[in-house]
Every structure is written in C-alpha cells, then in structure tokens.
C-alpha cells in the first residue's frame, strides 16, 4: 500500500472509527470512492496484530484471534484469610470429614456460608460426600492443594492437642492476649492462676 494513497488512508480511518461493521455502500458514503480497496487493505494487515475482516458483506477491524490471550490478564490479589476462615479450615483439617453443623458446634459460633465458599475458592476444602444420618448433611474435607500450601506431607503431620499444649498454643495467657488484641471472643479462663 502506498502511504500516499489518500483513499486507502480514509478507508482505514473510517473503518477504524466506525462502531459497526460497514457494508461497501456505507463505506462509499464516507470516502466517496470505490470501496473495493477494502480487500487490498485487508491484505496489508494480514499477519499483523490487527486484521481487517469481512463478515456477511460487512468489513471491520478486529484483533488477531491468536492474540486473545494477551487481551486479558489475571490479577491476583493476595488476601489474608479471616479469623473465621482460618478457624473453620483448622476444624476441617483436624476433624474431616465434618459437617457444617459439627464445625459450628466445635467453633461454638455460627459459620457464615461465605466462609466455606472462600475456603473452597482457595482450593483448600472440598465437599466430601454426605453423611448417612437424618438430613444427609454434606461433609467437608481438605484437598491435596491444602497439604501443598501448608507444606504438609499428610494430615497426620498436623500437630496433635498434646503438641499444641506443649507449644503453648493452648496457653490461656496467649488466648487472653489474642482476645484482647482482636477484642471479639470472650475468653473463659480455663486454668489456674496464682
């Protein structure tokens, strides 16, 4: 294409600016010339990031189909799991398979539907069949991805209650401190003081 070709340039501009694919008569109304140039212009764009294509007698520019993957990008927002989320996940990990009612009874607090959704979205929790009791409640279990994320070879690697106690994680001082920090849970003082 000769860059100096005014009609070709006008055709290019008109097709670019149009918000609709255009028929040859429509193009002619703008550039007032033979609009067969469209085919020539299409050749010029062949193999480029932009293509000029004809669909049902109408011409339009579009991005090359093979570049579709560039027109979207994933954005990952790193988000911290809420306290309810991490507690629910811990209960599932320690007690799986476990129903929602059981989770609530262990946590002592109602579990919002959204909390389980988040854990499933994160890929750490999956539905694990129904329990064969009245109501047939759905149970939940952790996934392989859960193990990978937390660096566990298996669920048996999770520290037991005795380990937790030894690590001070059942220590009421920490518990009281946590509660004071987050200000949400009231803490029953479980053990002694001097």
């Amino acid at each position, binding site marked *: 294409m000769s860059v100096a070709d005014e009609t070709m340039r006008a055709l290019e501009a008109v097709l670019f600016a149009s918000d609709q694919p255009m028929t040859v008569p429509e193009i002619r109304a703008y550039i007032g010339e033979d609009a067969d140039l469209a085919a020539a212009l299409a050749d010029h764009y062949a193999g480029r990031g932009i293509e000029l294509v004809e669909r049902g007698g109408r011409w339009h520019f579009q991005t090359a189909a093979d570049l579709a993957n560039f027109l*979207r990008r994933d954005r990952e927002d*790193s988000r*911290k799991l809420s306290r309810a989320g991490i507690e629910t996940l811990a209960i599932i990990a320690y007690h799986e398979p476990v129903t929602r009612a059981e989770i609530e009874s262990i946590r002592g607090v109602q579990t919002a539907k959204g909390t389980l959704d988040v854990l499933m979205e994160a890929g750490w929790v999956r539905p694990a069949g129904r329990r064969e009791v009245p109501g047939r409640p759905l149970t939940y279990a952790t996934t392989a991805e859960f193990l990978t994320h937390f660096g566990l070879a298996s669920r048996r690697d999770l520290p037991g209650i005795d380990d937790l106690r030894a690590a001070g994680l059942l220590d009421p001082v920490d518990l009281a401190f946590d509660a004071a920090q987050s200000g949400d849970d009231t803490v029953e003082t479980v053990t002694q003081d001097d």
Partner: protein
Amino acid sequence: MTDAAETLTIDIDGWEGPLDLLLALARSQKVDLRQLSILQLVDQYLTYVDEARELKLEVAADYLVMAAWLAYLKSALLLPRDPEVEPSPEELALRLQLRLERLNAMREAGARLVARDRMGRDVFARGAPEGLRVVRRSRWDAEIYDLIAAYGRISARTRPVMHIVAVRPVMTLEDAIARVASMIGERIDWSTIESFLPGDASGPFRKSALASSFVAALELARQGRIELRQKSAFAPLYLKAAER
C-alpha cells in the same frame, strides 16, 4: 471583533464583565497592548457606557464602578501630578494594561486550544474497541502457624472446661485441726497461735497455715476442747487446752 466599538452600542449583555469589555475596546485600537493609549481607552469605555444608558439599557453595577474608576484615572492622569497620592496614576494605568495583556493572552491561548485537532471532532478513537479484560482472582494467604494456632485457640475455647487447681503450698483445715488438737495436749500454759505453726513455714504456706490454724482454733473452741484469749484487737492470740 474588528468593529467592536460600533456593535458595542447595542450589545452589553455579550460582555463577560467590564474587563472583557475593556479588552474588546483596547483591541479596537489595533495596537499592541503594550502601546495602548489608556486615555483613549478610558474615553472609549465611558462613551460606551453613556450610550448604553441613553438607550435605557440596564447597565450592571460593576460596569458603573469601572466607569467611575476610569473617570478618576483619567482626571488623575491629566491633572498635574500630586506626589502625595499613592499609587500614582501611571502605576494604576500600568496595572490595568498588565491585566488586559494577561486576559488577552489567555483568550488567545483558549482560541488556539479549541482550534486544535480534537478527539471526537477531528480525530477519532476506535469505534468499537473489544476492551481489555482483567480477571481478578484472590490468592488466599495463610500460614501453617495460623492454622494450628487457630485450632489451639478453638480447643482452648471450647474443650470441656476443666479447672485445674495447681498444687499450692496450703495447709488444709483438716490438717490444721489435727495438728492443733494434738499439740494442745502437750501445752500447760497459754501459747500463741504462731507457736502451733510448723517451724519451717514461710511465705504463702505460713499464711495458709496461720489462717487454717486460726479457723481450727475456733472450731476446737466451739467443741469446748480449747480456750482462746486475746487482750485486745490485733493483740497476740493465745491458746490453751480446756480444763475439764
């Protein structure tokens, strides 16, 4: 804007304030604003306002204020200079000229700006862009510590509550009763309650032993097995076996 002076006589509403009118009049002098004759400009303005009033047009107050100020400026410029008057009329005239220059500069800049090739008028963006997509995904973050700490927290919070009383250095009431009862038989005379405490008792244990021994003494006295004596409040408390 070339024949501004003539069209002015009928169109006062078209002006954006007195400065705008002054600028139009100044431009009608067809000189660089720096060569402007302020006296001529004053005359042009006053004539314009007079004509407008003759035509019984409403003349807004700020135009009249400007007219009065310009009339003052004109007389000050024409009369012999009074060195006492500050600022001098020449300074006032210069300020007016500077203001007109600035307004004129912006007016011309605005005209050049809007005459540019403007998007949507002279140049066009793509009519039907496909648009770009951002696929948002949350990457949830949690550490193994968070997980096990959470479980510890739940366990601590909801496990059957078990009150464990630590092994504390105490003397129980039963021990104290047995101890005081056995020792009292060996005492002939009045003895202070402290003398019934274990010799090595100290700290919290001594306090506990003292309290328990006191309650034991009261119990034994109630049973009639010992007698108590105290001279006054906080005075030493003495114990002796009851005489039967």
